[in-house]
């Protein structure tokens, strides 16, 4: 690795760097903390002539996604970035983008939703749109944020399914870390030119986009979109394998850390997965067999891979950085439980709602979760939902 490819970058800078190398046709965006920097830095690249992108500074996130939809339908490669309330305002158009099978890539910096108003990290924003038909890829650190962005454009265009790549607000978006980037030419040839099959500006093959779809065909089109999501997992794996060849870094639908011989496991996404790895090393040094399962891809949900990875674990804790406000478990825990049920795996699964609104998650708190799991193996506190570190 050449020294010039090793940089100290924040998550936002890393994502903007990936966007520069991808050089999309259109970026339409509206600023929102803590994602502003991504498109702000990118706007600088546009102003400096480092990219060929048409930058559209719109008046709202709803318009940002609308402009991306227009650009993508016209045949362009379109990207944007947002967070929290911005993603909420985009929600209507997110469904339009996925329904039209437009391969837009969105960098979302995970932030809590109002109210009360808060600018810090939790996963409520992307969880709110988990049914929007967008692939969702979570990043543990700035390196993964960069790597995921480069892969996302290729995944989206191959699957014809839009992709959200996330980072944890402030923790990763504003935290500077060592990252390794690829050469511009390597990224350029990896993503390749965008060649849409059908697009509005192709005057040799005129199409209609967004037509009324009544009971005679709507169902078939939704079925196709659902199938595209179902089969996207294989495409994500293909793209990861190509990316491994150019970067040396390997990615899957999920990552296992010291999981195979573990008695107890935590399931966690985003930056907390890194802290959990340190907790695991500490506990392993004391002879405790503990491990981690980190879903990298949350949509499509890697159901069978997750139940396979957890099949020999005696007790599982799922860490949910959001609450579905549904009177039961958080979103990740519910889906992990469903995956286990399908394989007839009946074991204690504890849910930990944590870190809402940026509440700090400490190493000792994660180590305590493993202690709870060893208790759960003995038959205590099975199926418990814990609000970790909250005052009540």
């Amino acid at each position: 690795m050449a020294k010039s490819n090793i940089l100290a970058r924040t998550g936002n800078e890393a994502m903007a760097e990936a966007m520069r190398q991808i050089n999309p046709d259109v970026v339409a965006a509206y600023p929102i903390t803590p994602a502003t920097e991504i498109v702000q830095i990118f706007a600088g690249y546009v102003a400096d002539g480092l990219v060929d992108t048409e930058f559209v500074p719109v008046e709202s996130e709803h318009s940002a996604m609308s402009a991306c939809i227009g650009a993508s339908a016209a045949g362009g490669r379109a990207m944007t970035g947002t967070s929290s309330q911005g993603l909420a305002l985009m929600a209507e158009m997110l469904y339009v983008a996925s329904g039209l099978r437009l391969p837009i890539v969105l960098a979302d910096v995970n932030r809590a939703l109002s109210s009360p108003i808060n600018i810090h990290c939790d996963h409520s924003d992307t969880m709110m749109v988990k049914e929007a038909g967008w692939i969702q890829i979570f990043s543990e650190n700035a390196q993964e944020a960069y790597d995921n962005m480069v892969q996302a454009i290729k995944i989206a265009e191959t699957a014809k399914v839009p992709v959200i790549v996330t980072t944890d607000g402030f923790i990763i978006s504003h935290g500077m870390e060592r990252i390794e980037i690829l050469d511009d030419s390597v990224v350029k040839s990896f993503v390749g030119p965008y060649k849409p099959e059908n697009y509005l500006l192709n005057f040799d093959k005129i199409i209609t986009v967004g037509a009324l779809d009544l009971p005679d065909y709507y169902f078939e089109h939704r079925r196709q979109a659902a199938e595209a999501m179902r089969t996207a997992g294989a495409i994500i794996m293909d793209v990861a394998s190509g990316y491994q060849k150019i970067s040396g870094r390997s990615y899957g639908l999920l990552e296992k850390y010291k999981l195979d011989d573990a008695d107890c496991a935590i399931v966690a996404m985003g930056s907390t997965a890194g802290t959990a790895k340190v907790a695991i090393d500490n506990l392993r040094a004391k002879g405790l067999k503990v491990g981690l399962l980190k879903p990298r891809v949350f949509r499509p949900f890697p159901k069978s891979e997750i139940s396979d990875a957890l099949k020999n674990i005696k007790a599982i804790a799922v860490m949910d950085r959001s609450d579905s406000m549904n009177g039961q478990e958080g979103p990740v825990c519910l889906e992990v439980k469903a995956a286990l049920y399908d394989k007839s795996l009946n074991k204690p699964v504890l849910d930990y709602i944590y870190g809402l609104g940026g509440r700090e998650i400490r190493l000792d708190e994660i180590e305590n979760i493993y202690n709870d799991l060893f208790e759960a193996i003995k038959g205590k506190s099975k199926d418990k939902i814990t609000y970790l570190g909250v005052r009540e």
Partner: protein
Amino acid sequence: MKELLEIRWHGRGGQGAKTAALLFADAALASGKYVQAFPEYGPERMGAPVTAFNRISSKPILLHSGVLNPDVVIVLDPTLMEGVDVTEGLPQDGAIIVNTNKTPADIRKELKVPGSMKVYSVDASLISKETIGREIPNTPMLGAFIKATGVLDFKEMIEDTRHKLEKKFKSKPEVIEGNLKAIERAYNEVKS
């Protein structure tokens, strides 16, 4: 050096605590280390007490929780010590470096730190005024920090900083020389 070194910077909004942490991370990266630099985001007001953090290691850093027990604390503004417990979480063998014209013995008395902790002082405000022409204590504090802890090779760091400043301030050679001089003076003038 410890396998993982954790640093906490104390400053006031606008004084460059975050920038100092970022600069330091960049310098440590250039010497082949793994780094993290992150601020604590509270209410962002000019003059309000702020903190920023570094982690530095020869191995990849996986930890993404806050720094609770820093090995080194750096205080950019000595007036902070009246209202903020700058030694909070500092272990018995920790070190604290303060930008002040007082002696380390005075600071030790003021903060009531035990003899096992190391206390350093340097007048970074004066140095920055004399070398850069403005009060920017964060740049010289880098030099004091390296002298006090020995975590980076000083010559290597100066060369790397020169290289970076030359890129950034092509048309202002006086800025480059001023900053380098500030780091060098603090390196030489820090007292323990």
